[in-house]
């Protein structure tokens, strides 16, 4: 259902360039997110490897 009530002139050029800019600026943001996820994964892995040994019940000794 159509419910667009915007009343201002968005401007053709603004709409077109917006789509292009959104694609461009999404790349570093996407990459940053991927890198952050990768780093946190590595940290988690490293933390698990360095953790003190646990007994059978999982309690740290």
């Amino acid at each position: 259902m159509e419910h667009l009530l915007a009343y201002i002139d968005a401007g053709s050029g603004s709409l077109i360039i917006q789509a292009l800019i959104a694609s461009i600026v999404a790349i570093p943001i996407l990459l940053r997110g991927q890198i952050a996820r990768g780093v946190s994964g590595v940290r988690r892995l490293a933390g698990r490897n360095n953790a003190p040994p646990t007994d059978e019940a999982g309690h740290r000794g």
Partner: protein
Amino acid sequence: MSTHRSDIVERDPGSYRDPSGYVFRRDGVLYRSIDGSYIEEWQAFLDSGLHDRLVEHGWLIPFEPAPLDLAADRASIAVLRPEPVEFVSYPYEWTFGQLKDAALVTLDVHRAALDEGFILKDATAYNVQFRSGRPILIDSLSFERAREGAPWVAYRQFCEQFLAPLALMAYRDIRFGTWLREFLEGIPLDLASGLLPRRTMLRLGLLTHVHLHARAQRRYAARPTGAGQGEQSGPRISASRQAALIESLRSAVAKLDWEPAGTEWADYADRTSYGDVATRSKEELVARFVAEIGGRRVWDLGANTGRYSRIAASLGRSVVAFDIDPAAAERHYRALAAEGRGDILPLVIDLANPSPDLGWAHAERRSLAGRANADALLALALIHHLVIGRNVPMSFLSSYLAQLGPDLVIEFVPKTDPMVQLLLASRRDVFPDYSLAGFRAAFARRWEILEEAPVEGSARVLLRLSRRS
């Protein structure tokens, strides 16, 4: 039975663009009517909980539902009574930091709306006001449900109303802030792009949202996208890219900075001719006069960084602190923000050229005098700047101040004062009437002098006056 009394309603002359509703006053009380065409969007907005969350966050002005029979016309399906804003200010009166904070809150509101499946359908700076020291969105009808893949319809408006002026102020000259008075719809991007230094093209945010944006506007000016009619054939943007766009805009705004120093009056408080005795004496007199006047609202005209505004605020007054100097007002704003104070609103105003009535039919944005609501005026260390610095006759000053408020605390600074000597250093003294006697004569028609007190340790005099009825 409900009665529609449209004949006694005073519709806000600046509230006409959005068909979703408008602002009006009845018996001096501010209301917002909602048009029937907006009902589905409004209900969806309320049902989503977004409204409550934005209000809770302090980003959107709260409202009380009002009886429908207060509506100004039969097309209205609801009436709201928004909480009032103490003093309505305009973007061309804001400091750099105020415009920047208003831009950021606009983006934060839009981002929060996107998360709930809504958008801000407009991004005008006039939808933001300062309340308790913080920017707040005042238009509850600025939301509509997001359409999947649709670009942000208010992107251009945001760039023109916020990003372009902020960039010009930061990179070219702080005085570009006053251009918003000329360009009420925002600074055209082609103009901003042409004026910004070339090095701003090295900043991704400004390169894309101002420079490339301006070129795209030129190139595609006559190409229909179908977006205005809600067609699905226009440019498409996924939700994640929408979010990235907002984050990019936010980053571009956040990185803009301006150091408030080096202007004429920014360091005035540090360079003033007062000694400790005079400063203490003046503070005591101001406090006593303000207390004697009473009332709730004080306008501090020529407030600089707000030393005396704070004295009035400490007496429980709500203060609007005007100064011509964007650096002094910015320092004032930053200091208040750092202290978390909301009882003083600093603004940039040139009293020799105050904000006029502007916009459609000269009524959309009101003049400074048209918004006068002060119980008391402070005009401290101001008179010599207007009378000698700007050649304003004292009788003119008397008349204008009488338009702004009913009670006045004014400091007379004699010609022997070092600051007046400074003003006269490079010009002929064409002010034979500039004396305390001349002041009394010029102000006598409009004002009754209730008390005169010397500022100890100086040749200055503080006067308390009441406007003649």
